[in-house]
């Protein structure tokens, strides 16, 4: 472990002093973070470790990275993972076309360089003076990972849905994540100027490797509790009537208790709140809910299941908000 401290890594300039500061910063960027989330960010900054963010779809995993970048005023570099993603798409690629073009252009100049040399070895020696001209940074097309390491002020690197990528790619990420460096065979090792803040998200479609997990902090974001969800909705839909807010949050929370194929996520709660505000709803009636249920639920079977319980759910939601 000791060699890690020898690395010439400039300390991350963003160093929140407390968890509360993280919470405040994120909330200024429009993200209401729970205490765990704020703690994860706080620790990630101090320990310089990537965070694996897991949780059901739509609880704000990607949003967290965006808000973080916004708060810290760092560029957000996003890499979407998919099956078959490889180094040339994630790290770097040579600009083949440019290389080819330049060789064509320089063809005529070559005689002026080696023109007066008598034999092959002398000519080669002269060529060697220009050695790796075609394999230099000028011909390198940086992809997200390299870009993130190259950012002069650091960056927020979002590696989205890492579970969709192959296991090989995961192994390839290890060097980047633990030492903040990558090795390009033709150039050498590129070390981050300022280590980026890395977030990896996963929907747990497969288990991540132990090696990867060991190098990261692990944050599990679940559906928020009613109070947090209410705060989130208020921050995203500012003009919402507090009584409607209580009703709709209560309704969504109850809906998640049902046995659904895909329970409504926070983003869907926000969408629904927008819809209800647009419809000037004040009291959650069965009729309104039935008409707008497809905003919350995305499967036919789920909608059918919810409709059976509809009046019980809306009734309870209304009672909780204190409207008859």
């Amino acid at each position, binding site marked *: 472990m000791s060699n890690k401290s020898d690395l010439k890594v400039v300390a991350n300039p963003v160093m929140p002093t407390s968890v509360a500061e993280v919470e405040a910063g994120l909330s200024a960027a429009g993200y209401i973070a729970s205490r*765990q989330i704020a*703690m994860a960010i706080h*620790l990630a900054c101090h320990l310089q470790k990537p965070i694996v963010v897991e949780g059901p779809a739509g609880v704000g995993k990607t949003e967290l990275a965006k808000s973080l970048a916004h708060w810290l005023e760092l560029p957000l570099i996003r890499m979407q993972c998919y099956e078959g993603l490889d180094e040339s798409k994630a790290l770097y690629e040579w600009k083949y076309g440019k290389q*080819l073009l330049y060789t064509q252009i320089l063809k005529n100049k070559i005689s002026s360089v080696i023109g007066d040399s008598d034999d092959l070895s002398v000519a080669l020696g002269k060529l060697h003076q220009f050695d790796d001209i075609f394999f230099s940074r000028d011909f390198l097309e940086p992809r997200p990972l390299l870009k993130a390491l190259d950012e002069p002020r650091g960056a927020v690197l979002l590696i989205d849905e890492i579970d969709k990528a*192959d*296991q090989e790619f995961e192994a390839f990420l290890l060097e980047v994540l633990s030492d903040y460096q990558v090795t390009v065979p033709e150039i050498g090792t590129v070390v981050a100027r300022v280590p980026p803040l890395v977030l990896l998200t996963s929907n747990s479609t497969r*288990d991540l490797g132990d090696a990867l997990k060991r190098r990261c902090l*692990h944050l*599990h974001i679940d559906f928020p509790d009613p109070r947090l969800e209410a705060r989130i909705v208020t921050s995203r839909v500012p003009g919402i009537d507090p009584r409607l807010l209580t009703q709709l949050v209560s309704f969504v929370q109850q809906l998640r208790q049902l046995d659904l194929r895909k329970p409504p996520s926070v983003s869907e709660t926000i969408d629904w709140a927008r819809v209800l505000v647009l419809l000037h709803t004040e009291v959650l009636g069965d009729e309104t809910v039935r008409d707008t249920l497809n905003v919350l639920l995305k499967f036919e079977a789920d909608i059918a299941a919810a409709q059976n319980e509809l009046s019980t759910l809306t009734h309870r939601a209304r009672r909780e908000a204190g409207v008859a």
Partner: protein
Amino acid sequence: MSIPDAGGSLAGRSTFEPLRRFLDVARGVGLRISSAESIDAIRALEVVGYSDKAFLKDALGLVLAKTPSEKALYDEAFERYFRREGFLWSGEDRSDPVASEAPGSGSRVLSSLAQMLESNDRVGVTAAVEAAAVATGVQNIRYFTQTGLYSLRILRQAGLGELEGDIDAMERSGLPEETVRAQRLKGHLKGLREAVRTFVDGQLEMFGREDAEQFREDRLKTARLSGISQRDMIRMRTLVRQMARKLASRYARTRRRQLRGQLDVRKTMRRNVGWGGVPFLTHWKQRKIEKPRVLVLCDVSGSVAEVSQFLLMFLYALNEALSDIHSFAFAGSTIDVSELLDRQPVEEAIASILDKIGFQSSNYGNALAEFEDQWMHLVTPKTTVIIVGDARGNGANPRLDVFNRLSMRSKRLIWLNPEHPFSWGTGDSDMNRYMPFCSLVRVCNTLQHLDRAIGDMLKQQS
């Protein structure tokens, strides 16, 4: 296990002693914590400090627990450790301090432990015992047989010898008040012994679990599947999942390694036409390796049901390495259970399957015939068919003709029999008659057997 010293940035070692012990406890409940993670935990602790318990819990949880199930384990360990009250000695319940008959009334100077007991000094006794506990290294306790030994060691360290000496001397003095004092001290000592014993038991509960767990797992791997007690079921499930995952990742790796082949010249040329045929992008010949399609027929009658259950659990945990699993359960007749298994966790699904057809007497002939009627079209030359059963058809026609057709159609036909080969073919067992049609017949009644049988299947495939 000790934490490597993480360099000079850390303050004294002692600050981290509670954390180090907590890591032991966390390992005891089954978390896998590497030394790198221990160091992270220390660094996290440096950031948040001990002052706020909720913060500390969040911070360590982020570092140590890496899956939802691990989070639950972690919560348990954290609560258990930090709620832990160390040594508890209630002493004597007296409202008035015994200043009147306080030490000093006798001429003798008593040992410190005796004095503290007499004056009912709870804090003093507790401190003495805890110091003694640290000195004897009670956190190294592993087995319940050690509790007596450790209790005695702690007591000795805390000054049991001197105390007994005092009591002895008092009794020998023959003075009535001294005898009373001695009686009193004896009573205290008894209470103290019990308290220490409880304390050591608590320590065993916290620190002794790791090894016991390992021992139990090893035993379970080779235990007969039909005789697993209800108590061990949960552990078995996690074990099955672990073994399957290991197998899956190993298999996935070999499958991919073989994808590196020779250069595919034609495709490379076509791909690089844009650069005048200079091969910038290469394309390699790939050997396509099929993931096995597996079709499982499980006997769910009587004693075989347990083995079937574990096989199904195993196969569904292998999802990564298998492309397509189709499962059927049969006893007297056959039903398709794939959908049921897809929808529910295997354990629940098994229960509902057993409700439907379980514990009927098995009729292999009938089950096979039904299978041929309705589902034979699912069997292709790429399918591996696995049958789990004891081949005891209660004397019914074994329908070898159907079995032959099944064998011809499928790529491989594997029979896993929970019975010992010795009893194959005895009584109503038709195993020997089915055997010639199978490509592989295996005894399978422990997790290890299961692991090997499936492992071999995957290996042959690649």
